[in-house]
């Protein structure tokens, strides 16, 4: 079998806090094939964005560092390459869309200038070629009347259009991997649906692999082939999306799926109570402890869970769950 496009092995990212060092990512491994799509899910603070930043070589300076593990992209080891090489990869081969489109666009330049800038820097296009290419890209992300809108400033666009501009910028260098960190959180559902359709279509057309970070299981189901459930910096569960939704093997995954009021096609008078996951994610300084970090919220907890970090139980088709009682779920 050929090597995957991206292979992350036993990744550990540490953050220096006031009261010590915490593993914000603790022994994470996963693979992403060319043209594949994978989603990261989990509650706030579980390390989803940190994983993306680690891959991009954009960890918070002086605070975060890769302590151990490997990130192999297209045969190249990213944890040891030079800053210069990382920058080149970031511009050309892996690009990222951030959570808040307004803050990541520069308000004083037109969207065309911002897209053209990327094209000139990374593909060495001439000024006019870059401008024409910017129009094509806006068209590709379905901004109506791209030829005119290319001269708009960000504030002249709606939230959904700004996010599409961000996608256009991310695609400008025809990346092999597109990382989208909650690309639709601030948008209306109808706009979100359009962005999802757009990403799926671009993936089909260009073969770009997509890593999407989200907290919405529904979004995962629509967008990804495989998913990784993160909890407190660790991989709680990963595997094929349909398979996990049908039969989650980690209590956290199960909770995440059933705590959301999913819209139902046919309603009757019956009302059910939502399944709760009691409590909250532990604070960062507790990450890394040798126990199951989900134990305080888990309804299957036993003494073993409190004594030792659970190993990953392996199921079919690459489904793995880090739970002592995974087999019983």
């Amino acid at each position, binding site marked *: 079998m050929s090597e995957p496009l991206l292979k992350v092995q036993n990744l550990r990212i540490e953050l220096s806090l006031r009261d010590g060092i915490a593993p914000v990512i603790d022994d994470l491994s996963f693979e992403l094939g060319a043209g594949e799509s994978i989603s990261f899910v989990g509650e*706030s603070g579980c390390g989803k964005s940190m994983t993306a930043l680690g891959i991009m070589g954009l960890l918070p300076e002086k605070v975060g560092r890769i302590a151990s593990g490997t990130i192999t992209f297209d045969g190249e080891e990213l944890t040891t390459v030079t800053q210069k090489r990382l920058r080149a990869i970031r511009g050309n081969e892996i690009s990222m869309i951030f959570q808040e489109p307004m803050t990541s666009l520069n308000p004083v330049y037109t969207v065309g200038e911002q897209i053209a800038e990327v094209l000139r820097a990374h593909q060495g296009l001439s000024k006019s070629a870059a401008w024409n290419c910017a129009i094509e890209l806006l068209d590709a992300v379905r901004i109506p009347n791209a030829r005119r809108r290319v001269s708009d400033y960000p504030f002249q666009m709606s939230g959904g259009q700004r996010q599409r501009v961000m996608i256009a910028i991310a695609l400008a260098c025809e990346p092999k991997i597109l990382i989208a960190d909650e690309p639709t959180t601030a948008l209306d*559902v109808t706009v979100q*649906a359009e962005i999802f359709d757009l990403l799926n279509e671009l993936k089909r057309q260009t073969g770009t692999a997509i890593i999407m970070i989200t*907290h*919405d299981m529904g979004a995962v189901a*629509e967008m990804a082939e495989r998913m990784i459930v993160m909890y407190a910096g660790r991989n709680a569960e990963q595997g094929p999306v349909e398979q996990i939704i049908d039969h989650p093997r980690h209590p956290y995954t199960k909770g995440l799926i059933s705590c959301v009021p999913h*819209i139902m096609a046919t309603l009757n008078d019956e009302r059910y109570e939502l399944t709760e996951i009691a409590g909250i994610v532990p604070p960062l300084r507790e990450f890394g402890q040798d126990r199951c970090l989900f134990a305080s919220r888990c309804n299957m907890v036993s003494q073993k869970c409190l004594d030792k970090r659970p190993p990953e139980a392996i199921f079919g088709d690459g489904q793995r769950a880090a739970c002592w009682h995974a087999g019983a779920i």
Partner: protein
Amino acid sequence: MMIDDAQTKLLLDVQNLTVRFAIKRGGLFGKAKHLYAVDDISFQIKRGETLAIVGESGSGKTTAALAVARLVSAYKGRVNLNGTDFLSLQDEDLRQARSKMQFIFQDPYSSLNPRIRAEKIVCEPLDNLDTIPKEERQNIVDKLFEAVGLHHEQQRLFPHQFSGGQRQRIGIARALATQPDLIICDEPVSALDVAVQAQILNLLRKLQADFGLTFLFISHDLGVVQHMCDSIAVMYMGKIVEYGDRKSLFNNPLHPYTKALLSAVPSVDKKRRAESKRILIPGDPPDPLDLPKGCRFANRCPVAQGRCQSEKPRLNEVTQAHSVACHLVNETGIAPIHE
């Protein structure tokens, strides 16, 4: 005179509510224009029930709720709360009536004063009202903390010492302090993680059952709305475009916008994904300062016809429990878009 059952149960009756904001445009000599954020909407809530308002960002949900509570002033319309004409009340009458209507806000981080202890935050509405003797207030605060699932020891803490979900619990306890009839929840769980969201939604429903609360519940999350509401109003650009009880509206959505909204919700249910076709409504809503002559949804509507461009659709009853503002539905009584 016969008073029918529905009327005795009615807690809130809002008629023809309109809110407009003056907007200056075009520099010093530009004429002030008016933005009609809420344009002639009417709705009712029965005691002990929940009415949800849904709609996209900017559709006027928050403005409508603020106007009901007199936190922005209505330009036109009436708000009848429990038989009194709420908008015309003055001074002490107003203060008393206001205590019967409380707000829970979206952002548990900024809606609580960071320098005040939790117990004081919860007690404040009682202090302001000053109808209950001081000695009894502590007792009420204790009960409220228990009711929303906070520990007694946590009363002395400041807001930053709580998690997001706990802060929202404080907001709920505070809203309950004056034993209100109506609680307006404006996106009460949008800022929370899904797991915590479930805790708060269950809590709200439990409190509703225990205390007979009535909710005006604003959300853009249709799953949450479906779970919480008894009836629902769908807003688009300041107008209610569809209004009905929970079952009628979700089982038989009629307005093209409602259809599009429902079809856009991502689903974990393989069957639902396979069965429902996504209805795309590309483009942006119109400029609220320059509204089209006809239906406000016409420029995005996949089935719009000539009449939709030129004539405003009225909100018409399809059944007693279900009204829609769409020319095509009005003609036929059936949904113009079907999967």
